[in-house]
């Protein structure tokens, strides 16, 4: 027993010592640069999106610095991981605004992490640009909080328009993830469906953890709908089309920007993704040189094609830098004013950009794309003002 006790101590002691050895060396900070704070979940269950967002933001900083920087200075990204924990998001928001004194912040995080951080940025009067957290109340935090991702009510309405006007069909079944993003998209769809002659036959919710969508699909199979409007990220999207194929369902699927990733095709079984339509903001076929440079460099540096999350974060940094340039100042109120002053532009972002609403939400067109031969193909652009300006 005593010997065993001793060996236990040795094992534990060895383990602990090895760990303290690892706990060394810190990162170096670039001085005299314009600091942009950044946070996203880079560990934990959301690390896929968090990492993509980080890469997008890093690429934007790299491009801006290669092109001469901002106000004669380099940009520096001050990056933190929130690990999908709201308290950590709040902690790092304090660190960025009070400790690092960043000029502005970018959120590459989900809504439940972005909202607590946004409150801190607002109180500290530091502008925060949200990349893809779609909760309607985020920009309502205050005048320093903006968003570059298409608001869900707009994207949901664009989807309803796509179903009613573009596809010209009537009966839709909704498959909605049970988080705020899913709810917001579905609400946007349901609110405007009547205007475009679309009837919502059923709404089925699912959890992101749920691998098995077959019960939902089986229900929808018996309902004779014309289209399935589904939302989710690429993993759920691939699961949906795979299981749809397995169950022999031929009803067309309309998805959303969460589908917009090369991973969607990689995870889809042969033929399962063909014909799926999505509403998104990134137009891969665009002639815009920024888009092509972004897609090419992203693939080269990170070994994976860029997705919507990466593009949104790229845009968030790019728009902030543009505002700092135009204001020629790092004063928060000057930046906010410059942000509101931006009207039409696509010189620095991955898509056309029509400025911000008073509330800080982006006004930009929604692109409809279709899956053809394992790639997204441009299908239509929705830029009618009554949809784009739904805020």
């Amino acid at each position, binding site marked *: 027993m005593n010997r065993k006790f001793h060996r236990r101590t040795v094992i534990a002691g060895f383990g602990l010592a090895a760990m303290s050895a690892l706990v060394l060396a810190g990162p170096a900070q670039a001085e005299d640069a314009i600091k942009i704070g950044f946070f996203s979940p880079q560990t934990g269950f959301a690390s896929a999106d968090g990492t993509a967002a980080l890469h997008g933001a890093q690429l934007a900083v790299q491009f801006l610095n290669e092109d001469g920087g901002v106000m004669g200075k380099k940009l520096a990204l001050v990056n933190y991981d929130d690990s999908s924990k709201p308290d950590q998001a709040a902690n790092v928001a*304090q660190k960025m605004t009070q400790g690092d004194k960043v000029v502005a912040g970018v959120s590459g995080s989900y809504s439940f992490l972005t909202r607590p951080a946004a409150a801190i940025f607002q109180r500290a009067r530091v502008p925060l640009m949200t990349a893809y957290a779609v909760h309607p109340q985020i920009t309502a935090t205050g005048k320093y909080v903006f968003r570059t991702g298409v608001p869900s009510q707009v994207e949901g309405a664009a989807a309803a328009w796509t179903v009613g006007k573009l596809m010209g069909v009537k009966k839709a079944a909704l498959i909605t993830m049970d988080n705020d993003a899913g709810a917001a998209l579905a609400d946007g769809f349901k609110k405007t469906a009547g205007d475009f002659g679309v009837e919502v036959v059923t709404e089925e919710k699912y959890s992101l953890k749920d691998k098995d969508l077959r019960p939902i699909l089986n229900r929808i199979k018996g309902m004779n709908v014309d289209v399935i409007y589904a939302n989710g990220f690429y993993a759920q999207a691939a699961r949906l089309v795979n299981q749809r194929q397995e169950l022999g369902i031929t009803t067309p699927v309309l998805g959303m920007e969460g589908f917009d990733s090369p991973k969607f095709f990689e995870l889809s079984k042969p033929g399962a993704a063909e014909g799926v339509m999505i509403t998104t903001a990134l137009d891969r076929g665009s002639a815009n040189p920024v888009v092509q440079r972004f897609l090419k460099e992203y693939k080269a540096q990170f070994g994976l094609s860029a997705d919507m999350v990466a593009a949104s974060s790229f845009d968030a940094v790019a728009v902030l830098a543009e505002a700092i340039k135009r204001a020629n100042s790092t004063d928060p109120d000057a930046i906010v004013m410059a942000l509101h002053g931006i009207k039409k532009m696509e010189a620095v972002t991955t898509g056309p950009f029509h400025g911000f609403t008073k509330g800080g939400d982006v006004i930009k067109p929604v692109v409809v794309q279709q899956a053809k031969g394992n790639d997204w193909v441009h299908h239509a652009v929705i830029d009618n003002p009554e949809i784009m300006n739904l805020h």
Partner: protein
Amino acid sequence: MDAYLISVLTFIGIWIILAMSLNLLVGYAGQVSIGHAAFFGIGAYTVAVATVNLGLGFPLDILLAALVSGALGGVLGLPALRVRHDFLVLATIGINFIVVAVFQYTPALGGAYGIVGIPPVTIGGIEFLGLYMLLLVYAFVLAILALKALLLRTWFGVRLIAVREDEDAAAAIGISVASTKIWAFVLSCAGAGIAGALYARQLGSVFPENFGFVESVTVLTMVVLGGAGTLVGPIIGAIILGGLPEYLRFIQDWRYVIYGLMLTFLMIFERDGLMGPESRLRAWLGRGWRTLAADRGSGKP
């Protein structure tokens, strides 16, 4: 004081309250629960509804949170009267999932949108942010610690420990096992409700995602790592596990690898928890303390 440090310490204070409340159930009453985040969440949601929808202020909102969490804790603790051991552990996990699902699917609680715009605590026109909130949280820590120490000296404390050690023997000497267990659930969940209330006030928003299984595991880990059934154990556990992710930030995305390994090896090293009865750390600290006390004693003329 650095705003980041204040924020970190404030959350650690909230974890301390949460861990202390769970310790009453796990450490003293012997009812292991991996569902405590549910009651943390109920407290947070109560404050969210009380402040945003009903316009209640401090301290009524926190009182209400403690009451609601405690009452629901008593009701949801009822299975513990029939179900024991690992079966109870699973039942508590189940309660956690069901409570989070209720948050997520009830439109009156905001559903998936959660509830945002919870104002900070305001007393006499002063908004309790930063340092003020930190002091308020630690005032609650001290008050709850004192209450817990007192409670354990009462007859109820004796009943708790008797039930933990041997339910049948406790019943044989005339202790009502059922009422002891239910009261342990009520008090423990009320404590979690207070922690949740402070958490909601500190963050300004609540979402169903904040109160899941993983959070319950974390709290239990704080209690056991520190030393279940000791007064200081959960405090030490909450400080270590609440502080470690922040302390390890400089190793970036390796921090949770290290966090997991440290947890494993610390538990192998100190099997009763860092402050447990057989803890070597405690013995070592105790020796230091006695030496110190002796020095102080001998220093006097």
